[in-house]
């Protein structure tokens, strides 16, 4: 069936000629049009990361406003209406516009490189997912800017977010922003699953997949299984609000707690969707900076999968005080505590790796050490809130605020910052500053602990979450002032981080292909990689294909250079199956994203938007998939 033997092959091509031809076929044209129509996973991944960090900065500004208001009792700096918008925006923004997208964004950039392929699977879907994500973020922030930001909390409990108590379109904007980000997250999850399953370099069997790729694979499955729940929930909410369905109306057979079940069936796995990629980053950084592979590869993979499975059996621990039967709750106590086993296993394996390795204390590794210190606290307070009686006292207090910041900032943002320092040379071709990096780590580590540790105490002292102020007679003002001042240190650390990142991207010292002596495939190509990633696809015969004793990287030849071509391989053994075309640049994903945006925003106002808005969407999708007669469209 190989009737097309006529394509131009790379087999006997010289390096420079190969480079010229591959560049011609894979590169993104310059200019606005090229930027809008590119499907290069590296360009889109960088865009995604940058956008997510912009949202991080905006969310950080909101948190400073919160701290300003809470620095003293009965402060009048921000009124309750604006304050409720601010904390809702902070949570929503950090979870849906920063944490999940940034982890997926790192994967969009890194996974194809780490598995040794030339582009992500479904690259046009990838472009589409970015535009949809951007539109969702703009919707939320523009709404907030015009004083129509959601004010119902990031978990938008009904009936407060429901039709009767959530006046106006604020809650609808929240719910529809969810749809935007979920569509984009689901799309990316599918791309990553298929990339990992089908596009691994020849020989990269399941037991040779880098741990970061494993973590993203498990994360993507979590996204696929968990996010439909929030889509069902937010759609039901919009229907209740717009056309008068009764999902959450107890007077007509609906149920208020149904919302909480649906939300947390998504919401708890969400935590692991954010945390598991960080686990992969930590494993990668630990391996590189201890100069040895991570101890217990199989155990680490099993722990990832076990965490992913257990993640779906924990959601009720967010509802311990909602009045569910106590016996059922005890089951969820047990399952919530059980997740400490795989988490513990990972911690112990990293410790063992450090024990047996030769640590090099570079900035990425410092962030990993900071992660260990902070995340263990977050994990232990997680065990605490898993206990029903314990939780009845700390649920919805600042203890929980402290807990999840220890888990999410300690467990995910610290590894992420480490990962940015680690992969920055690959992303940009330039190194970040090691000196500044140490300062930044010091400021963020100190600022973080001083800011969030006292919140545990405030919670036990009875300070609830989400209050816009507190009365002077409560014994909380001292610690609150202390926290607000400490937040300045933390903010300074992040400010310096942004300064360093921007400065280094423009004028950092030039990076070699493999500045850290790392052993995964993304370091086998130049920094930054060429548009085609690898001139010849690498062949893998071990877990760490760039280990020190390798003299020349084994590669494969025989791919065409007159169309975008990559290799598909079998799921288990990664033995080559076909030379596959990878779609070229296209503007249609952007049009499809704009059509989706039109339909989704319109449907906040009218149910008919789903009918009429689907027409332009269908047109753009047909335009997207209709063959254009280019070599990539044919086989």
């Amino acid at each position: 069936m190989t009737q097309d033997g006529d394509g131009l092959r790379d087999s006997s091509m010289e390096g420079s000629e190969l480079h010229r031809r591959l560049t011609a076929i894979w590169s993104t044209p310059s200019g606005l049009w090229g930027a809008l129509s590119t499907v290069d996973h590296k360009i889109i991944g960088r865009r995604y990361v940058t956008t997510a960090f912009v949202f991080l900065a905006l969310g950080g500004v909101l948190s400073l406003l919160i701290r300003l208001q809470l620095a003293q009792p009965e402060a009048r700096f921000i009124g309750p209406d604006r304050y409720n918008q601010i904390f809702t925006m902070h949570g929503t923004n950090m979870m849906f516009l920063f944490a999940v997208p940034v982890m997926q964004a790192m994967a969009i950039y890194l996974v194809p490189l780490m598995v040794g392929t030339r582009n992500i699977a479904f690259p046009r879907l990838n472009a589409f997912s970015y535009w949809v994500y951007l539109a969702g973020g703009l919707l939320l922030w523009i709404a907030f800017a015009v004083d129509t930001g959601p004010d119902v909390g990031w978990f938008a409990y009904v009936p407060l977010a429901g039709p009767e108590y959530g006046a106006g379109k604020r809650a609808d904007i929240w719910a529809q922003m969810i749809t935007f980000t979920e569509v984009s997250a689901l799309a990316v999850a599918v791309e990553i699953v298929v990339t990992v399953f089908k596009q691994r370099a020849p020989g990269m069997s399941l037991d040779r997949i880098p741990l970061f790729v494993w973590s993203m694979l498990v994360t993507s499955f979590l996204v696929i299984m968990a996010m439909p729940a929030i889509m069902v929930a937010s759609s039901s909410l919009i229907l209740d609000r717009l056309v008068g369905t009764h999902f959450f109306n107890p007077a007509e057979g609906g149920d208020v707690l149904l919302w909480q079940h649906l939300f947390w069936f998504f919401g708890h796995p969400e935590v692991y969707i954010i945390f598991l990629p960080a686990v992969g980053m930590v494993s990668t950084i630990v391996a590189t900076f201890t100069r040895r592979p991570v101890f217990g590869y199989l155990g680490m993979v099993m722990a990832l999968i076990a965490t992913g499975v257990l993640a779906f059996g924990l959601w009720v621990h967010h509802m311990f005080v909602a009045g569910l039967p106590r016996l059922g709750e005890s089951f969820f106590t047990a399952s919530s505590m059980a997740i400490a086993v795989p988490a513990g296993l990972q911690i112990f394996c990293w410790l063992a790796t450090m024990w047996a390795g030769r640590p090099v204390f570079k900035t990425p590794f410092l962030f990993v050490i900071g992660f260990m210190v902070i995340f263990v606290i977050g994990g232990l307070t997680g065990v605490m809130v898993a206990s029903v009686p314990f939780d009845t006292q700390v649920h919805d207090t600042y203890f929980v605020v402290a807990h999840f910041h220890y888990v999410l900032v300690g467990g995910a943002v610290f590894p992420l910052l480490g990962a940015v320092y680690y992969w920055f040379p690959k992303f940009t071709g330039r190194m970040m500053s090691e000196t500044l990096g140490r300062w930044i780590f010091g400021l963020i580590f100190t600022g973080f602990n001083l800011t969030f540790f006292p919140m545990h105490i405030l919670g036990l002292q009875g300070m609830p979450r989400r209050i816009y102020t507190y009365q002077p007679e409560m014994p909380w003002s001292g610690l609150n002032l202390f926290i607000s001042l400490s937040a300045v240190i933390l903010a300074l650390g992040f400010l310096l981080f942004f300064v360093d990142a921007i400065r280094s991207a423009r004028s950092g010292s030039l990076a070699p292909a493999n500045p850290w002596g790392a052993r995964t495939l993304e370091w086998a190509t130049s920094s930054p990689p060429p548009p085609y990633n690898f001139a010849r696809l690498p062949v893998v015969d071990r877990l760490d294909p760039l280990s020190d004793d390798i003299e020349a990287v084994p590669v494969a030849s025989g791919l065409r250079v007159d169309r975008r071509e990559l290799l598909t391989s079998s799921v288990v053994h990664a033995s080559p199956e076909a030379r596959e075309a990878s779609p070229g640049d296209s503007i249609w994903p952007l049009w499809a994203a704009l059509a989706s945006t039109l339909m989704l925003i319109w449907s906040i106002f009218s149910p008919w938007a789903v009918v009429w808005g689907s027409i332009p969407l269908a047109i753009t999708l047909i335009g997207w998939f209709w063959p254009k007669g280019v070599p990539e469209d044919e086989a």
Partner: protein
Amino acid sequence: MKDKVVIDLAHLPPHGLGTASQSWWGTLAFMLIEGTGFALAIVVYLYLMSLAPQWPLDAAPPDLVAGTTLTVFLVLSVLPNILVNRWARQQDLRKVRIGLIVMSLVGIVPLILRAFEFPAMHIKWDQNAYGSIVWVMLGLHTTHILTDLVETLVLTCLMFSRHADNPRRFGDVNDNAMYWNFVVATWLPMYACLYWVPRL
């Protein structure tokens, strides 16, 4: 770092079919997403039922005629669908063209039957939670029929265009056939839930 060519891939086919193609896996992943959505809708239905004093809430059980006819029709539609799938695998363009025209027509019939299913529920979406969930379940499944119908129509046009005779197009037909089977398969538990659970 230096390269060392160890294998040559020139002999491989220029496009993978079935499990060797990415789009097959992509379709599977999207089916997993949507399947989770359907499963959740059924869970919501059963959850609301568990809370209700009687079920259906303030309504007679749905009439069986439209829904059962649709179910039988959907199950039967799998036959031509399997044939189209087989012809596409054999890359028999003429048969695939005929099959796709048949499947396009087959895709329209359920929409007509569906129009009779909504009134057969004896309730509107805004009357109570039972009405809300049955309308949403029917609506959710209808969008899937509609989506697949549009996809089939587009593919039919495509197979009559100059792009038709190409393994990649036949792969698309395979994926579309797989998706139709999925649309049928998801309907069966929904049918049992909507029409028979209220009669238990």
